[in-house]
């Protein structure tokens, strides 16, 4: 019996999670990258304080580049293991894309749950508006997951894989990245960003997810 679209998404998500937990390389690389850069930044500052805007920028630079260390493998690992063709034959394109997108989002939420508390401790940052920070992290990682899943699929056969992924991601993700920094700065006590930014980020996340979904078919069902 053919699974429904929702069941297909859940199956792909469960497959990704099982494979990720079994091999752990992507998780370890991503979390250790975040920890290393965070420790470097904290050591370099030697207990000195930064402006909220600088703190927010630093946090999102760490989150962005750490996510690049994990999210770029979502299709390349299938290609290396030789399972991409099987997935192409048996998996519906949208189930594959959305299942992998949900998994990447989950992966990035784990990264944020690991990085943000450590960042607050290491850099002695006080959060004045926790809900704004939560919204920025959820929508920021959502945008990275939406764009990252399609771009990971695009770079599967590329010769210079890792560096290329960051190069392709940054221009597309800037509309999420910049408001996320403004909102995070606001949650750390800076003036400015508010709910309109959250709305704009949510809208752009949706645009990225729909765009990825529309374009993925052209990639998945090649002539």
């Amino acid at each position, binding site marked *: 019996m053919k699974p429904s679209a929702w069941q297909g998404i859940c199956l792909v998500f469960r497959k990704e999670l099982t494979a990720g937990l079994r091999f752990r390389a992507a998780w370890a690389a991503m979390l250790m990258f975040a920890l290393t850069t965070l420790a470097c930044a904290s050591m370099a500052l030697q207990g000195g304080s930064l402006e909220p805007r600088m703190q927010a920028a630093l946090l999102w630079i760490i989150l962005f580049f750490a996510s690049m260390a994990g999210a770029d493998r979502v299709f390349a690992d299938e290609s290396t293991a030789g399972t991409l063709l099987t997935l192409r034959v048996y998996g519906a394109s949208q189930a594959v894309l959305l299942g992998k997108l949900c998994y990447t989002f989950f992966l990035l939420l784990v990264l944020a749950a690991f990085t943000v508390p450590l960042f607050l401790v290491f850099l002695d940052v006080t959060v004045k508006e926790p809900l704004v920070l939560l919204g920025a992290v959820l929508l920021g990682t959502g945008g990275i997951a939406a764009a990252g899943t*399609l771009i990971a699929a695009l770079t599967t056969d590329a010769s*210079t894989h890792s560096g290329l992924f960051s190069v392709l991601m940054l221009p597309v993700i800037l509309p999420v990245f910049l408001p996320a920094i403004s909102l995070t700065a606001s949650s750390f006590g800076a003036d400015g960003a508010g709910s309109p930014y959250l709305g704009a980020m949510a809208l752009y996340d949706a645009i990225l997810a729909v*765009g990825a979904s529309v374009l993925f078919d052209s990639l998945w069902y090649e002539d």
Partner: protein
Amino acid sequence: MRDSYLWGLAALLTAGVIYAVFFIVPEAMGLGPLVRIAFFHIPVAWVAVIAFFVAAFYGARYLRSPSPRADALSACSARLGLVFTVLATASGSIFSKLTWGAYWNWDPRQTTIFVLLLIYGAYLTLRSAIQDEARRARVSAIYSLFSVLTVPFLVFIIPRLYFSLHPTPVVNARGSVDMDAVMLYTLIAALIDATLIYITLLRRSVRAHREGF
């Protein structure tokens, strides 16, 4: 139209625009002779944006019905777009230094042109990283269309995020043109000239691309 006619027309128009910019156009209030940079900067920025949409349009055409011509047009337009974006960035920076005192200050329009520069760079890097021709054409077409999604953000969100020192656009927020008539006609001629140069270069580079150069 043959390329030689296009080149001739572009050369004539370029000569006319240069003459008008240096000998006819009056100095602008507050900017003085520096306004002359605008007659180079605005047309190259205009072509940089047109080339972006042409690359995406032929990317979409390729995905609808794959053909080497559509891929060549998309790729060549992106290459030319990168050159025009570099020219727009450089001329804008010089104008910025002479009027605001700094080459770069992340003004909304500087941010927009920089994002465009990143997109062109990423697109061409992606093309150079994939060996298989059909795969390269398909993947780069998808990326060029995906990057179009940033346009609403660059046009509507960025100007609200950052304070701008940039002069008011030619067509202002009220939808009217607030510019001296001589300046306006010269600018329109410069825009047509830059577009003509772009079209001629695009035709030439597509031919070279398809011949394997």
